[in-house]
């Protein structure tokens, strides 16, 4: 954005040491937040059923569970330990691996061990690594589309306020934010996949075939991007209009700067700040599992995995995905805050 120096200078960051201290503090806060989230998940899935009088161990064994096998499961998973002990074992397992044992029945889960699913009788970590690329591809592809189209539409609308383009774009945007993705997704499947037969609509891993992957991802990308582009266009337009009324824009114009420079350099810089905040939160949330999109298009991503896990109360999978999701949200927010300082020299990282 422009050729002016974007970092450095006495006013920007306060030296590399301050930035480092800031990063360490933020990472520490993120770690605390992760522990809190894991505690909350443990509480939701252990305390609420206990309060409601449901035994988790027997739900893992099955409907006709005999007391001995229920007790074995409880011992093997450590379900009778206090919650804090269980949380501790969970975190320890991530770094050093974990062994589940009850009598002669021993299951080893190598580090990084995010737990062992009793429903599917497999480690959680491979499930996460299998499904993560699908969700990441979905989120990143859609984000590029919605940023480009949403921001462009919003800026154009703001510049041509009241014009036919502005009204048209805003009507479409308002419709876009009012349409649930599981409806637009089904509609697009019905039209482009079933009706016109242009797109197969089935997910193919990128490693199998690039064109197949592209064909399977194009509808999810477009429908997901449509929803967010509508949201971003509305916010961009509102922010841009507000900024165009600011004194420094008038000053820039009064200096005789070209309109492209006034808009592209001066106005865009401030407009991008709220957009970036949203992008950080949205992208983080999506990377953790675009539950609705993945359900609509049957994409084998994290969102689909966690939804199935929630329905079967498969706690280890839920914990694993929640951890990844929260991590993604926290990292995305951190990146955004650092980017702030790059975009807006007034922001100091302290």
């Amino acid at each position, binding site marked *: 954005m422009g050729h002016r120096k974007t970092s450095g200078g006495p006013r920007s960051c306060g030296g590399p040491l301050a930035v480092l201290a800031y990063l360490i503090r933020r990472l520490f806060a993120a770690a605390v937040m992760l522990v809190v989230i894991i505690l909350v998940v443990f509480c939701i899935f252990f305390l609420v059923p206990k309060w409601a009088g449901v035994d988790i161990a027997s739900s893992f064994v099955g409907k006709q569970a005999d007391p001995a096998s229920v007790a074995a499961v409880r011992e093997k998973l450590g379900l009778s330990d206090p919650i804090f002990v269980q949380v501790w074992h969970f975190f320890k397992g991530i770094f050093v691996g974990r062994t589940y044992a009850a009598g002669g029945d021993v299951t080893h889960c190598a580090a990084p061990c995010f737990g062992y699913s009793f429903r599917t009788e497999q480690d959680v970590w491979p499930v996460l690594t299998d499904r993560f690329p699908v969700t990441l591809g979905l989120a990143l592809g859609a984000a590029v589309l919605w940023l480009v189209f949403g921001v462009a539409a919003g800026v154009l609308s703001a510049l041509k306020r009241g014009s036919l383009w502005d009204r048209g774009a805003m009507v479409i945007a308002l419709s876009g*934010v009012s349409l649930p993705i599981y409806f637009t997704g089904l*509609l697009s499947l*019905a039209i482009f996949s079933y009706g016109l037969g242009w797109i197969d609509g089935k997910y193919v891993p990128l490693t199998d075939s690039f064109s197949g992957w592209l064909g399977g991802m194009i509808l999810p990308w477009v429908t997901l991007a449509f929803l967010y582009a509508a949201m971003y266009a509305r916010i961009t337009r509102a922010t841009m209009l507000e900024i165009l009324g600011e004194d420094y824009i008038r000053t820039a114009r009064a200096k005789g700067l070209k309109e492209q420079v006034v808009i592209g350099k001066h106005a865009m810089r401030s407009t991008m700040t709220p957009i970036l905040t*949203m992008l950080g939160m949205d992208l983080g949330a999506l990377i953790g599992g675009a539950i*609705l999109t993945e359900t609509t298009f049957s994409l084998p991503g994290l969102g689909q995995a966690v939804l199935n896990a929630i329905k079967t109360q498969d706690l280890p999978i839920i914990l694993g*995905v*929640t951890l990844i999701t929260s991590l993604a949200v926290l990292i995305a927010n951190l990146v955004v805050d650092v980017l702030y300082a790059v975009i807006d020299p007034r922001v100091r990282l302290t």
Partner: protein
Amino acid sequence: MTAPLHEPTAEAAPSAAEEAAVASADAKAVQGRSLGRIAWERLKRDKLALAGGIIVLLLIVVAVFAPLIASLYGQDPDAYHESLIDPLFSTPKGSLGGVSGTHWLGVEPVNGRDIFARILYGARISLLVGFLSAIVAVVLGTVLGILAGFFGGWVDSIISRVMDGLLAFPQLLFIIALVSVMPDEMLGLNGSSVRVFVMILVIGFFGWPYIGRVVRGQTLSMREREYVEAARSLGAGRFYILFKELLPNLVAPIIVYTTMMIPTNILTEAALSFLGVGVKPPTSSWGQMLSTAIDYYDSDPMYMIVPGVAIFITVLAFNLFGDGVRDALDPKGSR
């Protein structure tokens, strides 16, 4: 999902109250107009917002009188009409998903329940959850936001950290998790009413930080104003100042955020029911209809289109009305 809320305008909104106050002070010179009056006059001129408002009113009427309308229309939402179903494909006979004089929007695949009647009843769930969860969020957000802003110090620190934390949570995931672990029977409720109750609480709970942040910011900026000082010097207690002096000035942003929160909540309810953790069958909900429609999007597209359009119209109407209210309460807008 980020709620499409616009902070700048909402923050600016209370100065409309000041303007109104100034205007009423000059009442003798110029005919004064209250904030509500000004907003209403602006809203009246906004055709789209009015249209949205009328649709919202209609929907409320439909939801409240759903049983009456259904009986006038002559269809029971839970009655099976298997004779109308093609036994081979289990989709409705006839064109457009079985649309006819007796079944205006066709019938469901497999069991042939009347779609129009189910849409009517679905409106009750959508609006009930949308409104009540917004009320939960507004009450929590206003009370906690005002406390954080007014008392500052450790009260503010705790409440603000909780708000930051909740906003950084993967919300949909937690809502799904919470709704799904809740027992099927509690507090004397059972079946779908438990789910509706839980959804209202959980959606409301995750919504309050959006309002809480705005209210906190407003309170922070207002607690040092002269009129608060005047009240304090007259010996007014803290709670008098909080609820009699500050709260009335927060009404504008609270109204704006509430109207914008309702459509978001309606979408969340539909999403939960779509994912199978919302209301339980046979209670009808638009999201749930869409989730069964996934299997028939090719053979019976009508079944998907009807609930989808119902959600769309409802949310669009609320959004149009909400945008209108926001613009009407915005002092920067032209009069």
